[in-house]
């Protein structure tokens, strides 16, 4: 008699643990592969996970294998050979290697990473630098803490120790007869021969029994529950200002680069930090705060006044984000062009208003593909920021002119730093 069993409903993912072990072991290889793959892809696709290829070498499981020497083989399908024929080695005729899938033919190993695995590996070693100000907020992060006992609560929280302790105290205080006393009495009754004494003992026993019935072993009064209090946990609040230049001097290519950079930043912050607000500011010669949809997809054109964006950021900080409570970050992307008259103002805003309250300020200068223009002379903004950085401001600057550079530069800017240095050159 056969047993027929339906296993289809059994929980899946039996191999999950082995898979995680494999990923952990191959982590550095996979991470490299993830970075390489993501350069070729759109940011939206990055979030979808996907296939990666790692060199098999690092994951190779060696075995003793024999190779070379004289070989003998029996093959099917002889058409014209007779004994004693010779076959040219370079030619066809069965000279092919046997054993496909062995050794060198598997030098690369392809497999599919899930969305989460991919993004986690991708963002693994990134963080917001210097997330120093932690403050208690009224928002979601609350923890539970033990806070003594209470007389009401859910059965799951009954504190047995405390309940029994109280019951014992009550029984002693009310002199509830013990079991041993009654047992002793019963024994004496059994041994007793004198009628009167026996009657007295029986009466005594009855009294004790009645009393022990009146005073319960455990009374609802004794029951205590463990009490928990919610306590707010300090969380680090942060705000990221995204300042993007959308003026006429920015070519489509440059805008594309800038948007990619911000998209990446957006993904990174949303995934890794719960308490990060993001403010999008775009500017031409005027600055406006916009929602993410407009920021990423809305068209705009005009002249360039960087100070307008800095001014807008300063005002928003003053209104909504008290620097003593918030960690403030900013990332600016621009082609580096700015009107000459504005340089002075922008520099002043930065040094006096913005940088003192900022934890970290990243500046990304986008250029035309080919990027040779960069070699000629630094742009006006670059010169300005470089001067500020040299005087010790928490400022990071990078230049980007190709799509494929976005990921490395992003990675570079937000890499986890060991010793909390503020701005790597």
């Amino acid at each position, binding site marked *: *008699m*056969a*047993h*027929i*069993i*339906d*296993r*289809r409903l*059994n929980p*899946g993912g*039996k*191999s999950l*643990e*082995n*898979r*995680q*072990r*494999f*990923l952990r*072991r*191959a982590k550095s290889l996979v991470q490299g592969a993830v970075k390489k793959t993501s350069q070729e892809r759109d940011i939206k696709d990055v979030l979808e996970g996907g*296939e990666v290829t790692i060199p098999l070498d690092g*994951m*190779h*499981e*060696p*075995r*003793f*294998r*024999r*190779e*070379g*020497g*004289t*070989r*003998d*083989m*029996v*093959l*099917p*399908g*002889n*058409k014209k*050979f*007779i*004994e004693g*024929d*010779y*076959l040219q*080695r370079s030619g*066809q*005729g*069965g*000279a092919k290697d*046997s*054993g496909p899938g062995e050794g060198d033919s598997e030098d690369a*190993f*392809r*497999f*599919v990473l899930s969305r989460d695995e991919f993004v986690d590996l991708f963002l693994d070693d990134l963080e917001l630098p210097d997330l120093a100000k932690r403050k208690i907020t009224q928002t979601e992060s609350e923890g539970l803490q033990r806070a003594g006992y209470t007389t009401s609560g859910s059965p799951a929280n009954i504190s047995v120790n405390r309940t029994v302790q109280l019951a014992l105290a009550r029984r002693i205080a009310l002199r509830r007869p013990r079991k041993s006393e009654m047992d002793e009495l019963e024994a004496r009754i059994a041994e007793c021969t004198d009628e009167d004494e026996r009657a007295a003992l029986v009466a005594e026993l009855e009294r004790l029994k009645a009393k022990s019935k009146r005073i319960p072993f455990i009374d609802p009064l004794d029951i205590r529950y463990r009490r928990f209090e919610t306590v707010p946990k300090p969380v680090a609040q942060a705000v990221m200002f995204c300042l993007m230049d959308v003026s006429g001097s920015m070519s489509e290519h440059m805008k594309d680069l800038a948007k990619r950079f911000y998209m990446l930043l957006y993904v990174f912050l949303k995934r890794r930090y719960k308490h990060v607000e993001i403010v999008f500011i775009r500017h031409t010669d005027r600055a406006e705060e916009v929602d993410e949809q407009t920021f990423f997809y809305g068209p705009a054109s005009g002249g360039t006044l960087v100070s307008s964006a800095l001014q807008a950021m300063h005002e928003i900080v003053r209104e909504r984000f008290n620097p003593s409570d918030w960690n403030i970050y900013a990332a600016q992307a621009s082609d580096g062009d700015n009107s000459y008259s504005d340089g002075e103002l922008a520099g002043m805003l930065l040094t006096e208003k913005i940088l003192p309250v900022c934890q970290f300020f990243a500046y990304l200068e986008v250029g035309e593909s080919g990027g040779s223009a960069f070699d000629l002379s630094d742009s006006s903004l670059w010169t300005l920021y470089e001067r500020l950085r040299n005087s010790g401001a928490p400022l990071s600057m990078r230049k980007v002119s190709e799509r494929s550079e976005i990921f490395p530069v992003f990675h570079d800017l937000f890499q986890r730093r060991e010793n909390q240095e503020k701005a790597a050159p």
Partner: protein
Amino acid sequence: MTDKTGRLFEGADWDFLTLQRIHDACEDVAKKELGLDVYPNQIEVITAEQMLDAYSSVGMPLFYKHWSFGKHFAFHEASYRKGLMGLAYEIVINSSPCISYLMEENTATMQTLVIAHAAFGHNHFFKNNYLFKQWTDADGILDYLDFAKNYVSQCEARYGRVEVERTLDAAHALMSHGIDRYPGKKNIDLRAEEKRAGRRRQHEEEVFNDLWRTVPTGPSKSRSVLSIERRRKLLGLPQENLLYFLEKSAPRLAPWQRELLRIVRHIAQYFYPQSQTKVMNEGTATYVHYRIMSTLHKQGRITDGNFLEFLQSHTNVVFQPEFDDPRFSGFNPYALGFAMMQDIERIATNPEAEDREWFPDIAGKGDATGVLRDVWANYRDESFIGQFLSPRLMRHLRMFHLHDDPEERAGIRVDAIHDERGFRRVRRELARQHDVGFIDANIEVVDVDLAGDRRLILHHHVIKGSQLNETDAKRVLQHLADLWTYDVSLIEVDANDKVLREYVVSPRPIPAAA
């Protein structure tokens, strides 16, 4: 329990009652017509994902955790998703009860085929073939795997994942050389094995006394006392089971590491018969499913349409491309096994003069299934091909033998073909191709200098000038040296004891205890 038409099913759909009917019908044919003797069957229906899971743990329903299984899983999953690889229709496990996994996608016809193939063909072979009887313990294997899984995870909890992984990596590298090739004194009893491990650990914990470590030992015996011969005898040398040797003699392994080596060794041993009987095992299963399906069709229990569907899958399975076909990748064990068994049936019932000359014992014996049952029980691939490959089949498959000597300038020589002069040579060569003794490198521990620098000396007996792949050999030896914890040298010698090459590997320093 069939309906009025006597059909087992109509169309492609099936449910669990259908499966039960199919199984009972197959069982009927298997027992009455073929006289098969099988373990009780346990048939499990699984999804594609579960099939992938099973692939990654060499088909077993449970296994200890190790990254290499995750690697295989990721690999299979990727190729399956891209459509590069189809999944097997079934997996069958040599255990009692015999577990067969059926894919839920299979049509009713395919389920019938698969039940006949796995639950009766393979099952009979597992239960009756002498290699499986000798080397595997079908009753105990699942319990033993369960024990192994728990033991490994306990070790991980006690000694750290990294340490356990290091030991298992090394053991896996040596797995193909962790096999006893010749039967020892007693049969394997995996259940007792599990109890023994528990008892030994308990005993060690009970009698542990740190004081003994500090007791001064007397002056060691002078080293000349042990002659080389005696020393080799004490260590049981030469020893070809490297894992066994390490488990028993490696000087600095912790008890749990020895136990891990033992687990890997037992599992390797469990799979050893399967690698020696690929042609026979698949041939048997294919022959059995073909017979059962034909009989069911004759009885009118499956329709002509379903039978055609079956024939299509069947011919795909037993397709043998010729050597110059781009699809060719060696002999297809299903095709060769099935062809040989049909041939044996022909020889037993309807022999020609040539067959009477070549197979006097079975030619015209009449009882084909009886002859086959005897073959299934008492042969492995090498001896099966060596004795039962008939000239007729060699002619039919147009087999020929190539001899490729790199020294030979003229090219590859055609050594023998399917003619009177060549039959025996072709057959001997094909049998040899299926002999694990020739396929695996012949490596054994020959000596160890216990009194001196404790170097372990291995020999690889080179056959036909085929030496070890250098990169892999070095890596495996590195693992071996890590377990042995002293230098290891591997010497490749040819038949005349001429040294062709010597590897020496020193152990890597053990990272500070985690």
